[in-house]
Structures are given as C-alpha cells and as structure tokens.
C-alpha cells in the first residue's frame, strides 16, 4: 500500500515535471528574442495544455499531504528556500502566461514575458535543488525535524539546479519544434539541437560533483541505481538529438520528457526504503513506510483514487487529442 502510493506520488510529480517542464522551457525561450509575434506564437503553442499541466503539481502535493503527511511537513519546511523559490517561480509563470496578452501595449507584454522567463528559471532551479536535497540527505534530528536550511547550500545542489534548467530548456525547444508551424519549427529545432550539448555538460557537471560529494555517496542506498541516472539522462539526450536531426520531433519530445521523469523515479529508487536520509543521525532517517499515513487513511484515499485515475488521465488525453498537431493561422489565440 505504501509503495503503491509512493509510486503514485512519483507519477504525479514526474508527470508535472514532464508537462509543466515544457511550459517552463517555452517560458525560458521567450528570452531568446524572436519579436512580439514569435513570443506570441510560442505561447499559442502552449495554449490549451498550459492550465492542465500545473494541476499535476497541485495533485502531487495533495497526495503528499494526504498519503505522506510526515514527509510533507518535513520535506517542505526542511527545504524551505528551494520550495519557496520553486513556488514563486510557479506563481510568476502561471500569472505571467495567462495575463501577458490582456494589455494591448507590446511594451507591457514584453515586461510580462520577462516575468515568465524569471519564473521559469526559478521553478526549474527550485525543483532541481529539491531533488538534489533528497539525494544528498538532510540533517534530520532525533526529534524528527530537519535542522536549518544551510544544508541546501552545496555545490551538488547548485549543479543539479543548473542541470534542471538546461534539461527544461531542451524540453521546451523540442516541444516548440513539434508544435510550431513547419517553417518556424525548423529554426527552433536547430536551437534545440544546439541546447543538447549544453544539457549534456550540465548533467556531466552535476554527476561529477555528486560523485565527489561524501554526503551523496553516504545517503544513496542503491549506488547502482544512482549511477544509472546520469547514464540514462545522457542516453535520453542523445536520442533526442538524433531524433531532432532526423526531423522526428515527436520522438525527441518523448526522449526529453523521459529525461525529466527519470530523476524523480531514480532518486526515489536510489533512496528506497528511505525517503529522507539523515546526514547527522542514521537513526533519524525517514522511511517511506514511516512517512505514510496510517492504513485507514490510505484505504480511503485508495477508494477515491482508483475510479478517479482513469477519469483524470482520460480528460487530459482528451485535451491532448483535441488540440494535437501543429499550430497554424486557425489555432485559437488567447495567452
């Protein structure tokens, strides 16, 4: 039961990173210029999917609170700056994208677009640092609380944050290659291909820093799984590059999406059976089973979630199906 809910939590957070990841990636790429028309076209490509993407985060945190209340309190308050930064980023992106086209003045719209860029960077950095914080362990004391927030300030957390920004940029560019009209897609496809080496470098840097970090080496319970993570990330990025070169943006998006989902799955697997590994007191490490809500709560949530999941996935799939394909002159414009 615990494992099923842990997997579901991972599914929702991973899906959030994959789906909202291209929102943030597109947001990030608003900084590369392209003029007012180009930026509007990029946001039109996000269009109908935007609102349905960040709900995965809200649902993930709902599951975290309902099924893993202890973890919710300790993880969020224990990694306060990372979570608050990511949260501020999410808020800026959600407000920026939805409000930027309401004023008609292009200068004000450009200002909103800068808000979206900043928000996208913050969100990517924050989630990258949070995943790194899990992997490098937290100073959880015997009283069950995480002491202080300075444990986040490590080179590995910084490198992981930057790697997340790079992965999200590649993902966003690949999404635009798939969605924009064919003429614009060729240009953005070249940017996507050029971004892949940047992401590879960032992943390699994070890997090296992580391998050198004693905290990471001691916290990880399954070193093989942890080593698999950078290997698979590099493989996914190379597949994305090859697919982009062969003008298969669909497959490229699957690969870059996998690159964003993999860290969630493999960080969870590498720490199992723990979820918060204590760096100060081995006895204070929190296992998934201890973090989970008691059995009656999980049973109740199970009865709610079981019939609901197909509906949630079904309506999301309906959104993707209805609005599939490249945008064109007849695509609805609102953001």
């Amino acid at each position, binding site marked *: 039961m615990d494992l099923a809910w842990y997997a579901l939590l991972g599914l929702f957070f991973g899906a959030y990173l994959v789906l909202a990841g291209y929102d943030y990636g597109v947001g990030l790429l608003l900084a590369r210029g392209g003029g007012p*028309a*180009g930026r509007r*076209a990029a946001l039109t490509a996000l*269009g*109908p*999917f935007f*609102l*349905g993407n960040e*709900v*995965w985060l*809200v*649902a993930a*945190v*709902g*599951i*975290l*609170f*309902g*099924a893993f*209340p*202890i973890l*919710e*309190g*300790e*993880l*969020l*308050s224990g990694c*306060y700056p990372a979570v*608050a930064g990511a*949260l*501020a980023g999410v*808020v800026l992106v*959600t*407000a920026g994208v*939805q*409000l930027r086209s*309401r004023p008609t003045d292009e200068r004000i719209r450009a200002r909103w677009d800068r808000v979206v860029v900043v928000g996208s960077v913050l969100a990517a950095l924050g989630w990258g640092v949070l995943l790194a914080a899990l992997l490098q362990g937290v100073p959880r004391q015997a009283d*069950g*609380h995480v002491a202080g*927030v300075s444990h986040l300030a490590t080179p590995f957390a910084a490198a992981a944050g930057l790697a997340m920004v790079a992965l999200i940029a590649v993902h966003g560019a690949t999404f635009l290659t798939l969605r924009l009209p064919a003429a614009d897609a060729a240009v953005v496809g070249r940017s996507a291909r050029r971004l892949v080496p940047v992401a590879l470098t960032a992943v390699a840097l994070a890997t090296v820093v992580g391998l050198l970090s004693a905290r990471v080496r001691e916290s990880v319970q399954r070193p093989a799984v942890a080593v698999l993570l950078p290997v698979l990330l590099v493989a996914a990025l190379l597949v994305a590059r090859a697919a982009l070169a062969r003008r298969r943006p669909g497959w490229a998006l699957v690969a870059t999406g996998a690159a964003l989902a993999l860290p969630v799955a493999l960080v969870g697997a590498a720490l199992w059976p723990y979820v918060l590994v204590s760096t100060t007191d081995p006895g204070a490490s929190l296992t998934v089973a201890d973090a989970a*809500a*008691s059995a*009656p*709560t999980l049973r*109740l*949530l199970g009865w*709610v*979630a079981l019939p*609901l999941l197909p509906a949630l996935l079904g309506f*999301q799939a*309906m959104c993707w199906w*209805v*609005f599939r394909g490249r*945008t064109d*002159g*007849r*695509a*609805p*414009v*609102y953001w």
Partner: protein
Amino acid sequence: MDTLLLARLQFATTTSIHFLFVVVTLGLVTLLVGMQTAWVITGNPAWERLTRYWGQLYVINYVLGIATGIVMEFQFGLNWSGLSRYVGNVFGAPLAIETLVAFFLESTFLGMWIFGWHRLRKGVHLALLWGVALTAYASAFWIMVANSWLQNPVGYELRDGIAHLTDFGALLTNPSLGMAFGHVVSAALLVGGMLMAAVSAWHLIRRTPDFVLFRTSLRIGLVTAALAITLVQGFGFAQFGPVGAVQPTKFGQGPEAQAMVAEWTARFGPGDYTPPVLASVGLGFMILIGLTLGCVWLLLPLLFRDWIIRLRFPLWLILLALPLPFVAVILGWISREVGRQPWVAYGLLPTEQAVSPVGAPVMLASLIGFSLLLGTLAVTNWVLLARHAARGAVDPALGRPPAPPNEPAHPEPALA
C-alpha cells in the same frame, strides 16, 4: 518577532487574497453556466456575447485564484509542518481528495473551454463549462470539509499524540460543515451577482454602447444578488446553533465556554483560551453589511419598465455597494478562523504546536516575499479586470473567431 506570529500573518494574508478571488470565481461561473446554456438552447447570439464578455472577466480573475491557491497548499507544509505531523492522517485526506476530484479536473476543463471556441462542438464546449462549475463547487465542498474538521475535529482517535482516521463519514456530517458550506456558496453567488450588477450599472451610467447587453446582465446580477443575500442570511444565522454547540468559546463567554476553558486548563495546562476580540468584531460588522445588502430586494421592483436605469441613482447605489460583499466575506472568514484561536484544530492541537521549526529570518523573508508577490499580482489583476470590464463587450479576446485563412498568421513587415 516570533515565527508563530509571522506564520499566522502569512496565512492570513494569503488566505484573504485567495478568498477575494475564489468567491468571484465560484459566483461568476454559476452565472456563466446559465448564460452559455441559454445560448446553446436558444441559439440567440446575445447570450454568446454575454458569455464571452463575462467569461473573459472570469478567466482573468481565475488566474489569481490558482496562484494564491498553490501558495496556500504549499504553506501547510512550509509553515505548518506540525499540522501534517499531528493531524495529517485526518486533515490531509479531504485536501488530497480536493486536489484530485476537483481542482485537477477544473483547470483541465477550463483550458479546453478557453481554447475550445469555434473548435469543439457546441454541446461539448458547454459540457466543459458545466464541468468547470461542478468541480469548482466540489472544490469548495472539500475545502470546507477540511476547514470544518479544524473547527470541530471528529472521526478520529489519538494514539501517541497523533490523530488517526476512524470514521470518514463523521467528517461529512460535521455539524460545523453543512450550514457553513451553504453560507460560503451563497456568499460567492452574492459576490458574483453584485459584481455583474455593478459593472453593468457603470456601463449604463456612462451610456456606453451595448445598452441591451448590460441591461440584461444588470437584471441577472440583481436577481441573483437578491436571492443570494437571503440565502446568505439564512445559512449565516442557522450556523449560530451548531457553532455554539461545538465551539462554545468562539462567540460566547457563557457557562459552557467557561466549562470548556476549565477542561482545557486541566488537560493542556493554564493558558489564554479566549479567542481575540477581532473575531466578534468581524462577526458584528459582517452581520451589519449582510443586513444592509438585504436592501437589494428594494431595488427589484424598479426593474419594472427599467425604472432602475431611468432613475439612475439606483445604479450609483449598486456601484458604490460593490466593495461591501468583498469586505463582508473577509470579515466572515476572520470571525470563523480567528474565533478558533488559540487552536489550529479546536481543542486538539494548539496553534503554537503546529508551526514549523524554521528560523524567524526565513519565515520573515517568506512573509515579505510572498505578500509582496501576491499583493502586487492581486492589484495588477484587479486593474486588468477593471480595464476589461470598462472596455465593454466589443470583441473580447475570449472566443474570438480565428483569423480568416487567406491572412497569414504572423504578418511580416513588408519592408523587413
């Protein structure tokens, strides 16, 4: 400054801003459902124009509802980790259900509704709006289930100081839930109706084009507000019984409250168990506003032969009364939440035990940062709402037909 005060200030700020936007969301979506249903059934384009105009205001307002809502959800873990540690087994369940059953679908449907004009079949498009509305109500319901549990914890047993769920049905039949849910939902309808009436009144005062459109929405708004204020008053006064029974210290100083305080002193040690006077002050002023707004009924006869528009001063009254329901919902929220103090879960978990053990500087930075961020976004959002409301119903961006195919989607400058 201690972290408890900072955390409470932050929660109060975020919740208040959130509440100002979600009542509008809930009220307007109900009216939108009526308008779009009328459009689909009658095929009268006037209803389409109404749906697009009010829909655009609804969608702009929705942005801040989500933004503040996400911050609220995270705040439980960031600032109130004791809440999840001691009562998370019970309190977390309705919140988790809310995110899955309600919010997840609400936003997914809304995205398809915004972009579905001229693309989906009319019936499917309407069904999406119904979906948005139903999930919005479901959202309000589950949040009220969670909140009512904090007001009156039921259906649990304590083992080693941690609450475990024993009877989920008790959460749904909580005496502090039913009337409060009705009260909140009718308050949202009141806000939606008043907003619609006031914006229409402004256009009718200024004699902008679209007289017929704003005449219609003035009538819809006023009738909704009148029906809603009566429900608000009814559900409001009906709460005194159950609230007094389960929370004797909230508004009372009588023998029951004293007995409760004596019991808590025995169990938790001596302390100040009386809620701040702010709760009763909030309640008093809210009731005053509620009774004043009851006068909306006096305006209804003036709808006959448009006397309300011809006389003009009733339009000014409606316009000037617009802040009142917003002030009232905040006061009502204050009286419900502050009246629960010093408990986060009444008689079970003191507020000071629920606050996260983070340092005061972190909490202060978070309070200032998020208050500035959400405050700025809220003001910006209201300015945008006011501008779009004033711009009138001529070609709102929502539901605009796509450009004709012979025109390029992104026209290039000729001499570039």
